[in-house]
């Protein structure tokens, strides 16, 4: 091997090592075996090659949850806490989320941070619809969750989930930055378990 670099042998599959008995796969493990992944791994181990074994879901989910870009859609009081979360003290950059996008086209997460009034509701909905899939919504604060202190008001929407689907609700008026980060962690857990792989218990 040359100094300063490294070389990886291409993984070749020794077909004689693969079992050819055909049996309908039943359990999750058998289904996985049926895809040939396990034999690939075994073959690679024999040749001492470098193999990264994963499921496509897992890779996608990992990529998605590691750089959630939120859209700047501060509505009311909670937006100031959103700024506080993004600043140095609480530092949301630890989650790869420090890039608040002004355009919904470039974002994949929306914080509904503040009171959604009847007049603002169609704009929030439009903003959500403009975001590209996959997209997630975190409803922050009592106002966005249920209407909160303004529940009785004539011009406040009683919960943003009336107009758009919500993934995580963070209570508080406004939520502390710690609560905010906890909500973000919950969303990451949720994204981690998305897709078929999660149903088979493979994303753990």
């Amino acid at each position, binding site marked *: 091997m040359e100094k300063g670099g490294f070389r990886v042998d291409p993984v070749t599959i020794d077909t004689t090592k693969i079992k050819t008995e055909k049996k309908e796969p039943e359990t999750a493990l058998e289904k996985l075996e049926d895809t040939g992944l396990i034999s690939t791994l075994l073959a690679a181990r024999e040749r001492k090659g470098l193999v990264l074994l994963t499921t496509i879901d897992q890779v996608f989910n990992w990529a998605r949850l590691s750089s959630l870009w939120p859209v700047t859609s501060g509505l009311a*009081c909670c937006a100031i806490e959103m700024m506080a979360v993004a600043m140095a003290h609480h530092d949301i950059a630890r989650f790869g989320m420090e890039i608040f996008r002004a355009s919904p086209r470039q974002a994949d997460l929306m914080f509904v941070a503040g009171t959604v009034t009847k007049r603002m509701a169609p704009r929030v909905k439009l903003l959500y619809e403009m975001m590209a899939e996959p997209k997630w919504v975190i409803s922050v604060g009592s106002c966005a969750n249920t209407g909160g202190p303004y529940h009785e*008001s004539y*011009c406040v929407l009683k919960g943003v989930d009336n107009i758009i689907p919500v993934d995580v609700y963070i209570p508080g008026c406004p939520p502390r930055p710690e609560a905010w980060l906890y909500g973000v962690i919950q969303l990451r857990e949720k994204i981690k378990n998305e897709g078929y792989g999660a149903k088979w218990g493979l994303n753990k």
Partner: protein
Amino acid sequence: METEQLLLNMGPVHPSTHGVLRFKLRMDGEIIRDCQVVMGYLHRGTEKLGEMKTYLQFVPYTDRLDYIAAMPNNYAYVKAVEELAGIEVPERAEFIRVLCMELNRVVNHLVFLGSLLLDLGASTPIMYGFREREKALQLFEMLCGARMTFNYIKPGGVREDLPEGFIPKLNEFMKDMEKRVDDYEQLINGNEIFLLRMKNIGVISAEEAVNYGMTGPSLRGSGVKYDIRRLEPYSIYPDLDFKVCSYPEGDSYARYMVRIDEMRESLHILRQVADNMPPGKAATTQRYGIAPETGIPSSVMSYFPRIFTPPPGEVYSRIEAPKGELGFYVVSDGTTKPYRIKIRSPSFCNLVAIPSMIVGLKIPDLIAAFGTIDVVLGDVDR
């Protein structure tokens, strides 16, 4: 050259409008020919809700008007109710209230500084501003457990007395902060780009500013030395030593400088208040109105009048909030709930002047001028 005029929509979701405000601009090339401000995207019906709540229950709603500086909102409303109901407040409570309000003024100006510079394209000052703000918020947390929406000042006093170790922490903060203000000035004031963006932008004369109903630092940036803390003194302000900062130019830079100077003055006030804090109770010891039957022994219950009925009448009471004149018009009909609450918010009235300030300028100048007016949309729309 004749060009077609273009209607440009800015907002309601725009990073530089500090919330949900919308400008309808008529553009001639790059020049703004006409500006129409559309608001109400955060109108939550606070005034109507006030008619459904008791006097004490409305205090938390005032927190959510100007949510960057909530203490003065608490105080303005409570002052109106106290004037209406004739509630006496002990001296220590007044000292704590002034301490809270001045600390909140510093916080407000820090957020102003950060967000203005962010709008102008400098992303470092907001980090500094929020770093210091976080320290001040820790002080507020010591006081009342909340970071932004305090619900701390109540009719008859404040909710809790100062906790142990508060004054030393405050002194530490002030010592730190005084150096920081100098740092900000060194960092920002001489910056060529900053000066070009701020000087002679958004100019408004003193007469016009008064006629447009501007108040607070925005008005003092036009050279009118008007401060309610001096003209119509309330609380313990007559005994305090501070000067009213004003600059005669009337442009964005003057409004910015007023706020920088005010931070220093607020720290000066804080020092006086912290050094002369009198002993005693932090809430009234007299019983007003009816205490509800809760079964809790009276030694545990503080003396706040929880339900009380001010005599019929009306009062307009104002204070100098960090953004300008904040007034509450409260009408009582002799029941436990206010008949009408009208909020005169500084942001709303300061915003009236924006169209006249920016016609003939370019959109980046609108951002600069709008940033120095320092509005909060919760305060504009209520």
